[in-house]
């Protein structure tokens, strides 16, 4: 084991059963070069203060549960290394803009409700039986939506988006990226069903193209692109509905 040095980790603590509002607490954590912020927090929980609350599981940046603000930036704590934050102190806070349930744990329910609302499943363009085998899809067709399938639902983009912070009804970057993922899939024919969600004020029109969402996304989903390219689609739908009453965008 490499020789550990100490680093100061300050955590914004909040416990709804006895704290009126969040407050900072500081911990000294022995830290080696290969330690992630998550491991630092685990050390606190295991050895110093078992009451610290945070979510984690995979520790390999794929389950999406360990998002938090590290020195003011939305990060996956399992993918952020203490060596890059030396000499400290490191300031850790629950993901910005989201309601804190406790310590570093935010409310995910609002996000999941939105995710459920956008029909995030394949609505087949042409139905097909299992016996007919798989739909054909060329690598080029796959490339048109693959990037948007990489979203791990970590909500870092929500913590990055001030428009979401100002109005939590905004569907937001991550969920719109997922919506677009299905719209852009060559097998899918559900765009018309999803269009009303994009067309709403809480859909693409709450976005001011701040663009920070894409900057912080750990999986290069580029949610800002998903949102903003759909403004043109929504605008077309706005005017074309007078021509084609069903309002079906191409």
């Amino acid at each position, binding site marked *: 084991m490499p020789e550990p040095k100490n680093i100061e980790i300050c955590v914004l603590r909040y416990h709804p059963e*006895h704290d009126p509002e969040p407050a900072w607490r500081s911990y000294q954590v022995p830290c080696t070069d290969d330690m992630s912020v998550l491991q630092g927090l685990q050390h606190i929980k295991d*050895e110093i203060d078992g009451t610290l609350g945070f979510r984690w599981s995979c520790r*390999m*940046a794929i*389950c999406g549960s360990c998002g938090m603000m590290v020195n003011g930036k939305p990060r996956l704590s399992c993918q952020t290394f203490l060596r890059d934050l030396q000499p400290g102190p490191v300031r850790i806070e629950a993901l910005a803009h989201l309601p804190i349930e406790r310590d570093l*744990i935010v409310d995910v329910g609002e996000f999941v409700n939105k995710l459920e609302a956008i029909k995030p499943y394949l609505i087949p363009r042409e139905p097909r039986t299992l016996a007919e085998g798989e739909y054909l*899809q060329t690598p080029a067709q796959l490339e048109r939506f693959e990037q948007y399938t990489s979203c791990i639902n970590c909500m870092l983009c929500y913590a990055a988006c001030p428009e979401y912070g100002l109005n939590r009804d905004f569907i937001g970057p991550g969920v719109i990226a997922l919506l677009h993922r299905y719209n852009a899939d060559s*097998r899918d024919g559900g765009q018309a069903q999803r269009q009303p969600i994009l067309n709403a004020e809480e859909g693409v029109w709450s976005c001011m193209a701040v663009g920070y969402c894409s900057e912080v996304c750990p999986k290069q989903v580029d949610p800002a692109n998903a949102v903003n390219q759909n403004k043109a689609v929504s605008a077309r739908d706005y005017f074309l509905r007078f021509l084609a009453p069903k309002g079906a965008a191409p």
Partner: protein
Amino acid sequence: MDVAEVDVAIVGAGGAGLRAAIAIAESDPSLSVALISKVYPMRSHTVAAEGGAAAVTQAHDTLEAHFHDTVAGGDWLCEQDVVEYFVGQAHQEMVQMEHWGCPWSRKPDGHANVRAFGGMKIERTWFAADKTGFHMLHTLFQTSIRYPSIRRFDEHFCVDLIVEAGRVQGLLAIEIASGGFRLIRARSVIIATGGAGRVFRENTNGGIVTGDGMALAYRHGVPLRDMEFVQYHPTCMPGTGLLFTEACRGEGGFLLNKDGYRYLQDYGLGPAEPTPRNKAMELGPRDRLSQAYWHEKRKGRTLSGPHGEVVHLDLRHLGEKRLRERLPQIYELAVQYLGVDPAAAPIPVLPAVHYTMGGISADGLTAAPLAGLYSAGECSSVGIHGANRLGSNSLTELLVFGRVAGMEAAAYARTVPHGAPTKIGALAEEARARALAILARPSGGERIATLRREMAQSMEDGCGIYRTAAAMQATCDKLAELQQRYRRVQIDDRSRVWNTEWLLAIELGFLLDVAQAIAHSALSRRESRGSHQRLDGFAERDDAHFLKHSLAFHDGDGPPRIAYGPVKITRSQPGTRAYGAAGEQADAERRAREDVHA
């Protein structure tokens, strides 16, 4: 306590649990389903699977070949009728996933692509880049949203099953956000809680993989089957245990010792050829590769790193372009976590615990020997992995047997009424009191982390890649001691809202039970088979005495009682498990034998 009433309750919303839920919802929308998970479904550990899912696909491949690979890979401890069903259903399930939108990687002609995988004779592993489990899990989760009959209980931690009148009638869960209890009454229950890798120190599993469901069933008298078979994955990241998928080797990666030598050729896996040949060298089965590492380490031919002895996984010859295209996540992991650019330098790796072959004993239709209880996924021992799982069989298992479990549990639910509310309520009260008692333990007791650390270290020492009676006995003794100390485990946090420490304490109880089942099953198996390898005079497979499933029964406060059950052999008589050139010869001989019989 809040009470919900459903037809079928599913504990676990990973690949297996979600597949089961969808199967029920699709076949009979009038049945209500409760889907309970201690994390949001998309955080389940299926998300971490990288390599792919096996299903016979190519014209020159056969179900027969997949069957033989699986049975031989499992060192003949598989239920052969179940394997037969499994390989037959696999392809259809992959197509079903495709119809649900899974972004499988494609060939230029638009058909799904397949890749080579360890121990598989022919390329038959479907993959979605190197994030197969991630894509499968998200596809299943998102598809499940379409069905209104599936009622999710996200971030609900199941603490006990309710067994009354000889059958399962529901479960008790803690709503984590409030710390309140919820009784979910059900006519049948499916357990799909995943593996138990966290009983070991160095492992590839997420923090939530703590064997909960296994322990829940076990405590209610259901035996845990074949628990001694724990798979070590040969290529993991030192220190964290993070996995470098077998696909690295499927794509052509080499394993080198400190002299830059492809040492696997010294362990009956050769000849060493420049490109991967299925079932040889780096594409041999995981148990053999992990064992070879152990020998190299003993011979002093490994490299010393800050987190122990390592060998090198060399991907340099694949080139940056191919690596970024085919193994993007691996590329990222190596660069970020190790500071190694795999296009420029070999990656240090070592074996780590990866998969529990055993689990809740289940018949070929996923039913446990307790009425109304079913299991699917890694927590279940339906009988397809035997003594060693082949990579990419397990994701397929989630689908094939997730579906079966759903159909079976639904069928059973239609035949029985809900039990008497008062009796069930009383049982739930007792379970609730037991869970709350942990919160009320006096201070000054044992720390959770200490017990967990000692358990994991002891499991690694006694039940690692190679085992001896003395070391296993020491582990058994240690576990008995830890069980005693667990009664004095103490937690700092006595509140209710999001009390994760409370849940960790309960999980530790599950872990210790599962650890005991593993260690005692291992100690009792006096032979070497698959992933269970002994050095102390039992280095050979012993079909005369041990071509049997081990069954660990919970036995009060004492250690488990170990019994044995028969193995179903249909077409494939136990033979030598050989790989590389020797394997091809053995295969030819087997075919010749079978031709004579036919």
